[in-house]
C-alpha cells in the first residue's frame, strides 16, 4: 500500500494553495480532485480578491485566466419596482488591483497546475469516499476499494466535505447553509461596459438585497465577466426546507425586476448552475482539526459574509500547510500537534475577518433595512471596512476576544428573544472600540 506525507483532498483554491505551499516546503504531497479538471465542479459567487494570491504567486496577473479588473462595487436595494443604488469606487487602493472576476473552471485548473509545477502530485477523476481510520486516528483516504496512507490528510473538499464528515468534525445544521442558484448570460462586452458604466476592461459587482428575497433573508448578486454576466440568488436551506421556497423562481423574478431587466435584457443563457455555500456561521475552532487531519476552505467553514470563499480558502490552505510542516518537523500528527493550526490562523487577520463576516451578514442580510440616512452610512462604512480587511488580510490585528467568545460559544445557550438585544449591545461596543482604536473618538474628546 502506498504512503505519502500529506494527502490534500480537493483541488479548489484552498487545496491547491495548501498543496502548493507544502510542495515548496519539500513535503511529499498528493492533491486529489474528483473532477476531470480542477474547477469543473466549482461555482463562483463573487469576485476573486487578490491579496492572498499575490502573496503566493506575485506575478499571477501575467498568466492567470482572469476576466475583468474590479474596482467598483454597488449595494442595490430592490423594492418590487424601485431600487436604490450605493456605488463605491475603490480609488484609495486602485494601484493594488485588488479584485478580478474569473471563471472557476479556468482559474482553479491554472492554480492546481501551479501546485503540480511546484512538485505536488495532482490526481484528477478521484473521488475520496471515506477515510482510513485506526483507533480514531485518520491514517489516509479511501478511493472506492483503493487506499492511500498519509501522515496527514487535509480536507479541502468543499462545503459537503467527505473528509470533515467522516472524521466527525462537521455536522449538518441546515442553518449553516445557503443555496445559490446562478446563471451565466452571454452579453457583448461593449454592451456590458455601457450598461454598467464601466471603463474598457473594468468590471463591477452588484450585491442586491430586498426583492424578491426579503421574505427569506436571502440576497443576490450580479457581476460582469468579459463577455457575460453572472447573476445569482442565495437563500437559506432552512427557509427552503420549511417554506418550500423555489430559488429558480426567485431568480426569474429577479431578472424581471425593471432595474435588473435593464441590465440583463437580450442576453442569452450560457450555463445554469447551483451550489451550496456556507452561511458564515459554522465556524467552530475545535472542529478544524483532529488526529491526523485538518480542514481548510469551505470544508472548514472559511468563507466570507458576502460569499467570498476564495481568499479565506487560500489563506486557510496556506496555514494548514504551515501546520503540516510543523507536524513533520515534530514527527507527531496527533490532535495536540494539529492544534497549532489555530495558532497559525491567529497570526493572520482571517479569524477576525470571519468574525466580522458573521456580524455583517447578520446585519446586512437579516438586519433592519429601514431608516435611510443611517442605513446608507452604515452600509458604506461596513463595506469600506470590509474592503480595508481585504487589504490587510495578511497582517495580524488585534483580535476581539470577547465578541468572538460570545458569538462562538456563549450565544448557543442564549434564548432566542435575548439574542437580538445582546447583539446590538455587542455591535455598539465593537463600533465604539474600533472608533477608539482609529483615534476618531479621542479627537472629538480633545
Amino acid at each position, binding site marked *: 500500500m502506498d504512503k505519502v506525507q500529506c494527502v490534500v483532498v480537493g483541488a479548489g483554491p484552498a487545496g491547491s494553495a495548501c498543496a502548493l505551499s507544502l510542495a515548496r516546503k519539500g513535503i511529499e504531497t498528493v492533491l486529489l480532485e*474528483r*473532477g*476531470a479538471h480542477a*474547477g*469543473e*465542479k*466549482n*461555482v*463562483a459567487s463573487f469576485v476573486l480578491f487578490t491579496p492572498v494570491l499575490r502573496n503566493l504567486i506575485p506575478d499571477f496577473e501575467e498568466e492567470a485566466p482572469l476576466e475583468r479588473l474590479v474596482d467598483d462595487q454597488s449595494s442595490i436595494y430592490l423594492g418590487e419596482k424601485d431600487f436604490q443604488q450605493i456605488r463605491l469606487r475603490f480609488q484609495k487602493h486602485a494601484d493594488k488591483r485588488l479584485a478580478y472576476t474569473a*471563471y*472557476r*473552471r479556468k482559474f482553479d485548473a491554472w492554480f492546481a497546475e501551479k501546485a503540480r509545477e511546484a512538485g505536488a502530485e495532482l490526481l*484528477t*477523476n*478521484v*473521488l475520496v*469516499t471515506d477515510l482510513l481510520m485506526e483507533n480514531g486516528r485518520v491514517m489516509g483516504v479511501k*478511493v*472506492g476499494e483503493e487506499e492511500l496512507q498519509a501522515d496527514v490528510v487535509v480536507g479541502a473538499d468543499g*462545503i*459537503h466535505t*467527505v473528509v470533515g464528515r467522516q472524521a466527525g468534525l462537521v455536522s*449538518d445544521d*441546515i442553518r449553516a*447553509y445557503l*443555496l*445559490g*442558484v446562478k*446563471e*451565466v448570460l452571454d452579453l457583448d462586452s461593449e454592451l456590458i461596459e455601457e450598461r454598467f458604466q464601466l471603463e474598457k476592461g473594468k468590471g463591477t459587482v452588484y450585491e442586491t438585497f430586498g426583492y424578491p428575497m426579503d421574505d427569506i433573508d436571502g440576497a443576490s448578486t450580479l457581476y460582469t465577466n468579459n463577455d*457575460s454576466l453572472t447573476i445569482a440568488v442565495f437563500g437559506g*436551506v432552512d427557509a*427552503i*426546507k*420549511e417554506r*418550500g*421556497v*423555489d*430559488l*429558480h*423562481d426567485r431568480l*426569474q423574478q429577479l431578472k424581471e425586476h425593471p432595474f435588473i431587466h435593464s441590465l440583463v435584457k437580450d442576453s442569452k*443563457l*450560457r*450555463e*445554469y*448552475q*447551483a*451550489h*451550496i455555500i456556507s452561511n458564515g456561521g459554522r465556524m467552530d475552532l475545535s472542529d478544524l482539526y483532529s488526529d491526523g487531519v485538518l480542514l481548510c476552505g469551505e470544508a472548514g467553514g472559511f468563507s466570507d459574509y458576502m460569499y467570498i470563499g476564495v481568499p479565506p480558502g487560500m489563506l486557510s490552505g496556506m496555514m494548514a500547510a504551515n501546520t503540516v510542516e510543523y507536524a513533520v518537523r515534530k514527527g507527531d500528527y496527533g490532535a495536540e500537534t494539529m492544534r497549532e493550526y489555530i495558532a497559525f490562523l491567529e497570526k493572520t487577520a482571517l479569524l477576525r475577518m470571519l468574525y466580522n463576516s458573521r456580524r455583517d451578514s447578520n446585519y446586512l442580510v437579516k438586519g433592519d433595512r429601514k431608516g435611510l440616512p443611517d442605513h446608507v452610512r452604515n452600509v458604506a462604512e461596513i463595506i469600506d471596512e470590509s474592503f480595508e480587511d481585504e487589504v490587510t488580510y495578511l497582517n495580524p490585528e488585534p483580535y476581539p476576544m470577547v465578541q468572538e467568545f460570545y458569538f462562538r460559544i456563549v450565544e448557543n445557550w442564549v434564548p432566542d428573544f435575548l439574542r437580538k438585544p445582546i447583539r446590538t449591545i455587542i455591535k455598539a461596543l465593537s463600533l465604539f472600540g474600533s472608533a477608539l482604536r482609529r483615534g476618531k473618538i479621542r479627537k472629538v474628546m480633545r
Partner: protein
Amino acid sequence: MKAHKKDIEDKLTKVTINIDKEAHIVVKKELCPDCEDKPCIPACPAANYDWEESEGQLIFNYEGCLECGTCRFICPLDAIEWSYPRGGYGVVYLWG
C-alpha cells in the same frame, strides 16, 4: 408538480453532464407517499424531483443533478441517500 419545470429543463440543456450509469443519489421512494410537504420538489434547482399524481409516487432523475447537495439536507424522512458521483462523472461546469 414542480413549477416552471419546462423552463428548468430548457436551462439544463446548457449544462454539460457526464452521466454515470450508476445513480449517486438513491431515494427510498416507498417512504414518499407519507411525506406531507415534499420539500425536495420545490427545492431542487434542477427539477429532478417531481410527484406523479396518477401513480401516487415520487419521480427522481439523478441524471440532471447539478450536485448542489440541497436534497442532502432537506428530506424530512431521511429518504435520500446522498453522495457525489464517482470521480470524473457528473456535472462539468465550464463557466462556474
